[in-house]
């Protein structure tokens, strides 16, 4: 009996959290259109995110591109279709791997730190303090983070796409013996704007998901040091799962 009761409790909690999350998003939009813009705040957050993320973005891009070239060679050489490698690399990167890997890396790098920061503010009563100082936390904390990350992710994805193609180029030319001009030509020829834009559209969506989920997890964390830890974990796990699942539906959209 206790077991069934616990399952029931869990399900109720799940639904009420989901409802709270939807309400949170609605409030976000309400305050987005009733803005009180703290410019200094927005700008410094954007710059911070940018500087702290560039190294991992570069690493993600270069190694994905390199491994992609190597792996597709293994497969395609069996049909003597090696010439398709530049196309495969650029297509896979722009349409799929660029946005998804960037999303996952940024949720680990930035999402976790947003959740930890806001959860710490919750635990140390800084969120309450904001209210006593006549400041709305949507305007002060949520909006700058969501806007910054939603705008930053397409830039990151563009970087990953570009660096990834370079990685594929390096491996193809120096390891697999491709002609360097031909490789670049094939890459550029084959890539359509639509491919790139479908990835950028995903990037906007993932940036929004990461930031809104992380803010939510931070703001509604449990009390104590334990609360900060679980807020951080939840932020990364939930945004990663949402990225992977929404990725399928976004792909269907552009199919």
């Amino acid at each position, binding site marked *: 009996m206790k077991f069934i009761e616990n399952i029931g409790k869990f399900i109720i909690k799940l639904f009420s959290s989901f409802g709270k999350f939807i309400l949170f998003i609605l409030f976000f939009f309400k305050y987005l259109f009733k803005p009180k813009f703290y410019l*200094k*705040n927005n700008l410094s957050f954007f710059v911070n995110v940018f500087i702290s993320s560039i190294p991992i973005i570069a690493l993600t891009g270069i190694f994905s591109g390199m491994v992609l070239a190597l792996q597709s060679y293994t497969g395609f050489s069996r049909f003597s279709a090696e010439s398709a490698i530049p196309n495969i690399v650029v297509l896979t990167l722009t349409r799929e791997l660029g946005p998804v890997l960037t999303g996952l890396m940024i949720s680990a790098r930035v999402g976790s730190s947003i959740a930890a920061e806001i959860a710490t503010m919750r635990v140390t*009563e*800084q969120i*309450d303090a904001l*209210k*006593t*100082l006549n*400041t709305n936390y949507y305007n*002060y904390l949520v909006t700058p983070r969501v806007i910054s990350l939603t705008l930053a992710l397409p830039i990151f994805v563009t970087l990953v796409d570009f660096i990834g193609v370079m990685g594929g180029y390096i491996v193809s030319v120096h390891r697999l013996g491709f002609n360097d001009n031909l490789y670049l030509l094939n890459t550029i020829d084959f890539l359509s704007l639509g491919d790139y834009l479908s990835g950028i559209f995903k990037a906007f969506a993932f940036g929004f998901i990461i930031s809104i989920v992380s803010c939510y997890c931070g703001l509604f964390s449990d009390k104590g040091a334990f609360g900060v830890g679980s807020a951080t974990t939840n932020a990364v796990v939930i945004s990663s799962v949402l990225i992977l699942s929404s990725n399928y539906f976004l792909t269907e959209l552009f199919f």
Partner: protein
Amino acid sequence: MKIEIKNLKKKFNDNFVLKDISLTIEKNKSTIILGESGCGKSVLIKTIYKLFEFDSGSILYDGKSEVDIDKFSMLFQYGALFDSLKISENIAFTDFINNKTNFERKVLSLMNDVGLNKSIFDRYPSELSGGMKKRAALARALYKNPKVIFLDEPTTGLDPINSDKINDLILEVITKRKITAVSITHDIKSAIKTGDNYYFINDGIIQDKGDCKKILKTKNKIFKSFIIGAKY
């Protein structure tokens, strides 16, 4: 401002924190709330501040149930200073984030009032000791000239000498500025020193109340054992 609380009830899920609280906060007096850790003191003052909603009962502010909470101010238990902002930016927070610039003189005079050296004007909270953080947080609370100030355990976590200093400071500030004060403490010495009236909360209700100067003469058994436990 006079605040009257009648039969206030507040719970979180199955946790009945405030079961039946009635008390009166007199205008320009210092009211002390006493009670064991976890008995709901912080929840009570945050409910009065309208940071929490309550389940039943009533709170009247000068006879009305509506109030502009901008007349209130709070000193949080650990200061709740914003880590990413300088001390001066913390103290003038609202002006600072709204891009007003001429707050320097007001901040300096407040820092002087609460006994902070002006050398920490550009420091960050993490560089300050516990006592200095409390002072900075008090300066931030005073910045908007509140009518009512809520102080959540202002001396907890400080050594006896610093506690004494903070108590003197609070007393000076609230009498000089004619502010209504509501303080939480479990330090009897602080209560006697800084308070006019006290309320003792136990198990969600007011167990005892009276004049702070007569705390030690209380007849209430539970409050007596609390006083002994608090090692006065």
